[in-house]
């Protein structure tokens, strides 16, 4: 068995993803930070405001995909370091990048499924999607991008305490929600700050697909999401490779 070949490693990454989904989707921190918190945050933004349904939908979908895609990733490595399962994984013939890609795939599938539910809710409420293909591609790219971001957030510090990682990841997530125009459109100089958040580009894509207008071009949004994904993945793999021995010792 050519265990070192790329495709074989990808197959093993899917085995890890399957395991992650079986174990982590119902864990407390995942449910709280991936479902409950964004739901209440959505309510806090929307209740009592007379916002058009399209704008509400952008907020709902943005929050759902951002929080749920980033909920499993940060939890896995510290949980497994604590339960000593990480040592077992590392001693198996699976490259560190394949272990992390497995975690990203699990987070992606979870986030994408939750965002589909939000999409259905939006459609039931009467939101009109003008370009379903762009929205679908955008959701896939965004879920993968945020899942990669989640795994990056678990890279440092190399702790085995999940709550520490969740706290740090929330410290990063909340400012990004506010600067990304999820609920309140960003204009003027705010745009410069917004451009550092990957969520901005997904929000822009959803606006394009519902209201027909967007700040960036569709290709620009796609390119930004792909760029952020690659950046998060590369940095996550590099840092995890460096911190893994510390985590295991």
């Amino acid at each position, binding site marked *: 068995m050519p265990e070192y070949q790329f495709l074989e490693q990808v197959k093993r990454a899917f*085995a890890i993803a399957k395991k992650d989904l*079986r174990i982590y989707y119902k864990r407390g921190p995942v449910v709280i930070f991936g479902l409950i918190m964004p739901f209440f945050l959505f309510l806090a933004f929307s209740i009592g405001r007379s916002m058009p349904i399209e704008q509400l939908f952008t907020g709902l979908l943005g929050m759902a995909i951002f929080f749920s895609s980033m909920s499993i990733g940060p939890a896995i490595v510290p949980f497994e370091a604590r339960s*000593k399962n990480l*040592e077992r994984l*590392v001693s198996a013939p699976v490259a560190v990048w394949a272990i992390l890609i497995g975690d990203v795939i699990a987070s992606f599938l979870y986030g994408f499924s939750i965002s589909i539910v939000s999409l259905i809710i939006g459609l039931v409420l009467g939101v009109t999607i003008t370009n379903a293909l762009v929205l679908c591609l955008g959701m896939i790219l965004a879920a993968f991008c945020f899942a990669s971001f989640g795994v990056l957030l678990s890279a440092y510090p190399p702790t085995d305490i999940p709550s520490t990682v969740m706290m740090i990841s929330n410290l990063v997530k909340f400012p990004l929600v506010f600067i990304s125009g999820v609920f309140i459109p960003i204009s003027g100089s705010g745009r410069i700050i917004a451009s550092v958040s990957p969520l901005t580009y997904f929000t822009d894509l959803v606006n394009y697909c519902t209201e027909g207008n967007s700040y960036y071009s569709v290709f620009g949004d796609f390119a930004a999401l792909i760029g952020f994904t690659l950046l998060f993945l590369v940095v996550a793999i590099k840092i995890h490779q460096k911190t893994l021995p510390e985590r295991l*010792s």
Partner: protein
Amino acid sequence: METSIEVKDLTKNYGEITAVNHIDFEVRKGEIFGFLGPNGAGKTTTIRILTGVIKPNSGTAAIMSYDILKEPLKAKQIISVVPEMANAYIDLTAWQNLMLIGELYGVPQRKRQERAEHLLREFELYERRNHLARGFSKGMKQKLILCMAMLTEPQVLFLDEPTSGLDVESARLIRDTIRQYNKDGTTVFLSTHNMEEANQLCDRIAIINYGRIAAIDSPENLRMESSSLKSVEISFDKPVPVNELSKIPNVTEAKKIGDKIRLYTDEPHSTINSLTDYARSKGLTIVSLNTLAPTLEDVFIKLIKEHRGD
């Protein structure tokens, strides 16, 4: 003879502490190699380096000629590990744990299902295959971990304290299994505290202390080479002061053990003659008299003390 594990000048530091200090050894193909040492001697660190979990600061280690640093995936593909601390996934069933390991090692689906069924039956876990590992006893978890290690039919099996804390029956089952798989060709690297286990299972033993190898040999040779640990055990019909017996020529140490007195000597034959003379001169009757070869535990303690400079 073909080598399964080759370790050269391996060193691992944790800050100021040297956990493994320039060690060298080889494990021959098909043998059970014991790795003994007190707590903190460097046993687990060595296993973690050999299984690719952590990297050494210097030196090399190869499994079936695959360098664990240069070709880690090839080396890991042919080994399996029963780590001291690592667990099965407690939120997965026994069956799911086995399937996961099969997938991680690229074992084809049909084969991994057949192997899993066979192993679960062998370890009497088949009826519990669809139960979460969370509800398993320590013994059952350890059996499951061994099943997970054996699923991939490894060429080299690393076991770190595999019977620690288990009941007698489970420990015996695991020892019998290790013997059986070794008979079928698996090389076994066994780290243990249990001297009797090492004595029963191992073809050769390395004793490690303070990160250095103190001795490597077969259990029998280690015992025989420690001639100063030979002893004569005697009991008389009346109490005898131990310090009088310790003055007998060639006796290095005398100890009271229950109603007997054990005399450590490198000349058991002349010690027996001296003891019979002593009994005659004091009007004592010898109730029992035995010569004893050193146990592996005696050898271990002696080597550890020598190494420590006691």
